[in-house]
């Protein structure tokens, strides 16, 4: 979907209007901003929004603040465990979607989690596969040892 420059400018203006001064400064200088959440039982701890455009990643090691990233480079530097995929149900510029996500995260994180599709991030999956292989090899070695130590059948 392509949007006119005017639509994108309007969406950017509206997003900036709804950001706090600190968020606005961070977004304009670094391309992402932090969100102070009310929190919930299944809190996202830390969220990265970025590449591909509408993916939100959950980090397992840190609680606050929530950071919405809008560049793939920033996301690539992180090693998230879980990914959340969420996108808009309508044709709107990207900044409108970002604003909708920010407001939903701020006001109703639980609903945000309920809506988003959760998946294990590629980095975490690779680690898991490596771990599974390790377990498999350990299991095979244990079974071989056990077979070797078994008394012979009469």
């Amino acid at each position, binding site marked *: 979907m392509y*949007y*006119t420059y*005017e*639509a*994108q*400018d*309007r*969406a950017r*203006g*509206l997003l900036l209007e*709804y950001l*706090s001064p600190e968020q606005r400064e961070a977004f304009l200088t670094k391309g992402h901003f932090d969100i102070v959440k009310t929190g919930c039982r299944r809190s996202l701890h830390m969220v990265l929004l970025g590449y591909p455009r509408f993916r939100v990643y959950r980090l397992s090691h840190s609680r606050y603040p929530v950071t919405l990233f809008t560049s793939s480079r920033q996301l690539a530097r992180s090693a998230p465990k879980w990914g*959340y*995929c*969420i*996108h*808009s*149900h*309508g*044709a*709107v*510029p990207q900044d*409108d*979607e970002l*604003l*909708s*996500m920010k*407001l*939903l995260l*701020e*006001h*109703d994180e639980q609903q*945000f989690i309920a*809506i*988003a*599709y*959760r998946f294990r991030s590629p980095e975490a999956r690779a680690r898991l596969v490596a771990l599974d292989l390790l377990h498999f090899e350990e299991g095979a070695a244990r079974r071989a040892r056990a077979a070797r130590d078994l008394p012979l059948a009469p």
Partner: protein
Amino acid sequence: MMSILKIHSIRGDDEFRWESGVDDERLRRARDEFQRARRRQFFAYSRSANGDTQVIDDFDPNAREILMAVPLLGG
């Protein structure tokens, strides 16, 4: 006081203005647009003069600014 309803759209957002406390065509139009957006699962937020936002369920004719944010889907 002039109130404003902003609804996310393909044009960025669409604006509907009305005079707070005046029951006229503009207010009815804004209310209709609000309800139409609600039926389309848009999120509704009211923003006060100091920039604080809060979730609203119903159209508030005395609100300074209402934003209807685009609905989100997982997947």
